[in-house]
């Protein structure tokens, strides 16, 4: 169900048609996946589930997802040409139709690799009216709506990392709106998702990456 926060959720969003859920929402999901990866992927395998699979092509869901991966906004008039533009940008995209299980009908899973061959998986759903929710990053269940900037911190599951990261943010007076912490298993790879009211400056993100136990920091902007 779409969330109504503002008059511009009713008269708006400004978008490329035809569907706020199947086109605009798909573009936002693609944009979130791009941000998690940290740039334009080299390859993207996109699995379409449910209504995305059955009526997605007629609504340009495929092109909208790719437009997001290329960094286009949902109202960018290049969106209908995204598949051709992906080729020019060196992004190799393949689509499959899959049953992803008990998930929202408008769901896609995007398996991406970056220039260094690192793999990232982002799965998310388009809830209606252009609202989206990323529900899976790699193996971690998450909830990211893209309405606030998010810091994605990959780290080792060891004592003190969460405290060090939040202390660093507190020192710079950055307010945390919400926080999620998950791990693969005890002592293995873990993930912190920190929603902040405003964007986190690059130098602060760099200083977080230097904290003992932190392996990667990604800044996912509001989309």
């Amino acid at each position: 169900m779409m969330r109504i926060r503002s008059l511009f959720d009713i008269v708006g969003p400004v978008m490329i048609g035809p569907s706020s859920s199947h086109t605009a929402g798909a573009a936002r999901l693609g944009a979130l996946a791009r941000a998690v990866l940290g740039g334009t992927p080299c390859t993207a395998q996109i699995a379409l589930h449910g209504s995305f699979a059955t009526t997605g092509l007629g609504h340009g869901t495929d092109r909208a997802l790719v437009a997001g991966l290329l960094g286009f906004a949902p109202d960018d008039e290049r969106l209908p040409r995204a598949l051709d533009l992906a080729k020019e940008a060196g992004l190799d995209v393949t689509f499959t139709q899959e049953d992803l299980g008990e998930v929202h009908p408008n769901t896609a899973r995007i398996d991406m690799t970056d220039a260094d061959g690192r793999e990232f998986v982002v799965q998310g759903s388009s809830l209606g009216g252009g609202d989206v929710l990323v529900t899976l990053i790699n193996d971690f269940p998450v909830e990211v709506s893209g309405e606030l900037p998010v810091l994605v911190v990959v780290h080792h599951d060891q004592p003190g990392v969460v405290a060090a990261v939040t202390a660093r943010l507190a020192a710079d007076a950055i307010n945390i709106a919400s926080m999620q912490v998950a791990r693969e298993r005890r002592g293995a790879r873990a993930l912190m998702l920190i929603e902040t009211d405003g964007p986190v400056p690059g130098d602060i993100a760099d200083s977080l990456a230097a904290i003992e136990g932190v392996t990667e920091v990604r800044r996912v902007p509001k989309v």
Partner: protein
Amino acid sequence: MAFGSFRELLASSVDVGSLSAAALAREAEESGDSPEQVLERMDAALSVMERSIELGLSGEARSRSGLVGGDAALVARSAPGLSGDGLSTAVARALAVAEVNASMGRIVAAPTGGASGVLPAVLTTIAERTGAPRERTVRALVTAAAIGGVIAARATLSGAAGGCQAEIGSAAAMAAGAAVELAGGTPEQVGHAASFALQGLLGLVCDPVGGLVEVPCVTRNATGAAVALAAVELALAGVTFPIPLDEVIDTMGHVGRSLPPSLRETARGGLAASPTGRAIGKKTD
């Protein structure tokens, strides 16, 4: 969204003089933006609407399936205008925006992509015919959004949840109410206009042929605009609807929930399930 009922919106308008002023004040308060910033953003939305009307009327917007496109230009060129120019103008413009939407052009969802033609068509037509300045048209869009917000809070704006009445019906209610404010009607008349439009489209099913936002979605924008124009005439003449708008909206929600899934955007009922609808659906797969 602040207003959970039209009654509350109406009450807030008493001190400030209009529904748009009340909605604007609340939006500014909740978003932290100034009223001027909110109006600027709404002005930008109006500009996108105007461009989508122009593009659609040029006849260049064609959907990939080939099912829709070019009809807005045909109406603008060849409609006889038997009911007066206002109706044919609004109908052409509603088709124009809906064709741009179907052809993956840039539009303003109002309240959805599929129903994006009704509000710009009705509002720009009434603005021209009343000679209202642009700033008042922008404020009328605020009123339209506030009415849509009440519908979202009490019922739904989604065809999948409530059928086409939730999309075209809501768009027509928003457009009729906004047009009445633009034409100088009272806040109460705005409510009656929205009621007339929504009651006229109660029960309308969502049955997209082939699952595409094309047939009958595009032409339903035209008929939605016509219903809105009728509602504007009723309300400004002083006709009142005995059921309050909030109850009409609640009824739309109830009716939507009682529609079978086949008539809620699944493309398994209505025109989508007609023999020709099925045949077209197969071809566009």
